[in-house]
Structure formats: C-alpha cells, structure tokens
C-alpha cells in the first residue's frame, strides 16, 4: 500500500504540512503548523482541548482548506487542488470521526460498505469484505443492525471498520478511544496496530489519552494554542525538556494547569518539523 500512485511526487512523506494557518470568523485555530509524517509512520497528536487537533486532522483529510500554508497529502497539494482532485485523494484516506459520524439512515453493514460502494469497488466482493471487516473489529453478524442499536464502543468499532475497509494508504483517527474503558481502549489500539501492520499504511491519531497514544505512535506532536509545541519520539514525551509538555503528558494537574495558563504569555518555539 505504500507504492507510489499517479500524481504522487516522490519523497517518502505521506503527509507534509508547511506553515498551515487556519482561522474562523472569531479566532485563529492553527498558526504556522509544520509537520511531516513518513509513509508507514504513526503520528500521535496530543494537546489540551480546543487546541486545534481535530481541525488539523480535517485539514489533512482535505475537509478544510487552510488560510495559508501548504498541505501535501499522498503527493498531492490539497491546499491548491480543485475539489475533484481533493475528492480523489480522499478515496485513499480513511477517517474515524470523533463522534463516529455513522449514517443513522443506513444499517451497520451499509455504513461499512459505503466507502467501497462509492469508491468503485466491484459489487460482488463488497459483502464479503464488509463481513470480514466487521469480524475483525469483533462485531461479526451486526450487518443488519442500525447505529441507534449500538453502544458507544460498538459505534466506535463500526467507525474504525468503515475507515479501514477500503485499506486506505492514510488512516486518520480522531479520538478513537474517548469515553471507552481501559480494556476496550487497549483492544482498539491493538486493532489499529494490526490494521497498520497488514496494510503498511500511515496513521495519524488525535487523542486526549496521552498514555495510550504514546504506546501506539512512534512520534508524538503536541499542539498548544494552535501551534506545534513539541514534536519528538513517543518514548521521549514523558521526559521532554519543555515543562508544559512534560507536565501535560504526565497529567500533573496543578503544575500542568499553571503552566498551560502561563504558556499564553510565553513565546512558543518555532514550529517543529518531524522528519
């Protein structure tokens, strides 16, 4: 799955962000974000709530266009591309949304089959692939159920099945374990790991569960106040030089909160580049 496709410019990066800035009417959400994720890499994005993590994921997915900066995904410049070209790139990207975003008017089976049906997969193989994918996430035989009949954890797993059924080259997961118990969290990360090992694709995970994402990703980026505050190997996260990053990662509530409050006044370091 890491093979080059038409239109891909060489290089080993699945995602390259250069000075990405995104703002809405009332405020700026991302400022000068620069990141690079190599093909086959696993990037975890952490940071305080409302720090721009989900927006960053949507920029990578081509769902939001930046106000400034370059977004290169699977060799295509999404910031400058026409919507049709962006849509073609999205077919090669799978995404799990924070609130599952399952189509409530479709059954579980139809939800999982959706990217295949609309991605031009041969109709005869779709049913088997959906059944296999649901089996893979531990929901065998749930094809006919409606999303409203599922628990939060089950919906999350259906979302993962839908995001990965087309074997995407790039998988984006927005809070894959939010609100789940530790056992289910562990199972979900095992599932993501197994999927990635099978497809050889690239993963970007946004999560508030710092310990879990640090155990999954090989590199962590911390976003704070819309800027990349720290990028480095997951193993170095808990001993990072930056006190804000260290206390946030360790969950040192009082110290972390004080540092976060102070950080507004601190000039953040230059945007990190992960290469």
């Amino acid at each position, binding site marked *: 799955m890491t093979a080059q496709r038409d239109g891909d410019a060489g290089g080993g990066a699945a995602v390259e962000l250069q000075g990405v800035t995104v703002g809405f*009417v*009332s405020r700026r959400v991302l400022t000068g974000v620069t990141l690079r994720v190599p093909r086959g890499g696993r990037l975890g994005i952490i940071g305080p709530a409302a720090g721009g993590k989900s927006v960053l994921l*949507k920029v990578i*997915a081509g*769902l939001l266009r930046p106000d400034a900066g370059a977004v290169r995904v699977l060799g295509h410049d999404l910031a400058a591309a026409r919507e049709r070209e962006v*849509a*073609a790139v*999205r*077919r090669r*990207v*799978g*995404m799990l*949304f*924070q*609130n599952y*975003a*399952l*189509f*409530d008017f*479709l059954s579980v089976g139809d939800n999982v089959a*959706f*990217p295949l*049906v*609309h*991605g031009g997969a041969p109709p005869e193989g779709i049913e088997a692939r959906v059944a296999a994918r649901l089996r893979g996430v531990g929901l065998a035989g749930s094809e006919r159920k409606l999303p409203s009949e599922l628990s939060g954890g089950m919906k999350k797993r259906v979302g993962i099945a*839908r995001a990965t059924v087309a074997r995407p080259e790039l998988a984006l997961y927005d809070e894959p374990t939010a609100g789940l118990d530790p056992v289910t969290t562990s199972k979900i990360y095992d599932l993501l790991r197994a999927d990635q090992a099978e497809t050889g694709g690239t993963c970007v995970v946004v999560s508030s569960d710092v310990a879990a994402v640090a155990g999954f990703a090989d590199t962590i980026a911390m976003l704070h106040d819309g800027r990349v505050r720290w990028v480095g190997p997951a193993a170095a996260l808990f001993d990072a030089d930056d006190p804000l990053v260290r206390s946030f990662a360790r969950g040192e509530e009082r110290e972390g909160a004080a540092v976060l409050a102070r950080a507004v006044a601190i000039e953040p370091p230059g945007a990190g580049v992960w290469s």
Partner: protein
Amino acid sequence: MALVPRRSLTSLGARTLDLVDAVTDLVRVAAGTVSGAVFTYWRGTRPKGEIARQMHAIGNRSLLFVMVTLGFVGMVMVYQTCLLTTQVVDGRGQVGAQFARLLVLDVGPSLTAMMLATRVGAGIAAEIGSMKVTEQIDALRMSAVTPVDYLIVPRFFACVLMTVVLSIFGMAASWAAGGLTGYYSFQINPRTFFDLSMVAPAHVVLGMTKAVAYGAAIPIVAGWCGLRARGSSEGVGAATTAAVIGSSFAVIVLDFIISAIGLIFWGAGL
C-alpha cells in the same frame, strides 16, 4: 476609546464576509443541485428508491395538511368575496369563474408552496443540519460523495414533482370548499360556480410554472440552510428556522418574478 470603532469595524467586516460566504454557498448549492439533477443523477450512487421515499415523505405526508389548509382558505375567500359582491350589485354569478382563475394562476400553487415551505423546508433543514453537526456530511465527503448530489438532488426531484401534484389537489380542495360555501351561504348554483370559462391555457402554464419553481426552490434553500448549520442542536434549530423563513421568502419572490414575466409575455389580458 479608539477600540470601540475598531471593534465595530471588525464586526461589520466579519458580518459582510459571512454574508458574501452565505450567498456564494447558496449559488453553489443551487448550481450543484441543478447540474446534479441534469448531468450526474443517473449514475446511480444513491440508495435505490430514494426519490420514491422522498416523494412519499414530501407528498403523501403533506396531502391532508395542504388540502385542509387550502380548503379553509377557499371557504374564507369565497365567503368574503360574496359578501363584497352583494353589497352594491349582485355579482355572485361571477364569483366561481373568477375564483377558479385566481386559484389556478396564483393562490393554489403559492399557498401550497407556503405550506410545503414550513413542513418540508423545516424537515429537510433539520435532517441535513443534524448530519452536518454530527460530522456525517464530512463522512460523506471522505468517501468522495458530494453532499449536494447525495442529499439534495433526490429531494429536489421529489419536491418539484410533488409540489405540482399537491398544488392540483390543493386547488381542487379549495375550489370544492369554495363551491360548498357559495351554495350554502349565498345560494350560488354549483353549475354557475364551477365554471372554468375564465381559465385560459396561459393561466395553467403560469400556475404550473410557479409550482415547479417553488418545488425547486424549497429543497435548495432548505438544504443550503442545513449545510450551513454549526455547533450542536442549537445550530440545527437556527438552520430550521432560517429554512422556513428562507423558503417562504423564496416562494413570495418567485411569485412576484414569474407573475411579472407572465404580464410581460401575455400582457394585461392575463
């Protein structure tokens, strides 16, 4: 002190940009809907039977509502007209023919569309708005599916067709109710009341053109409002309100425009 005008200016600028953005979105949704209906609908990427489902939701479920409303409007209009026409000279013999002309030309399609703007417009905006705030629209886009094509185009087809059909049913209900009112309250002979001599083919063409235009405008405006929903349930509520207001306003504006075009083509004899 200098901050006050600067903040006002910033706010004004933001509102202006938001307005430009909204109008651009409306044009995009309208163009996308029409081009989707004409060029790409038949590629078959939507669930089977979607148009039939939408026709049932828009048409069958609005039938009673439209017929009862137009029936009452017919009764009130005929009663008031008969009261007026009997005050000076007895003109009751003309009421039925003139009422039929007015129904076909304007009141039937316009009132039906106003009813649909409230019921159907609100429904479309709430449905699409809910999908927007729960990221289902983004999930559609992740599968390279165009939300306008997938969600609005089937409703567009269904609404155009069912607005025409419901207008006909509504006119029939209004005419019948008006005839009964004329007969029981003012002793107008049904043979005199149910007179179509004043209805010309031009009136039918213009009335049906209005019905088609209203049927096209309602899902476009409501879909646009739904796609612009922000936040959570509050945003969906705001989108629903905006859809009802926007669709009703579109019906009134289209009524004016099409009537003006009719007058240009057919003159004062219309």
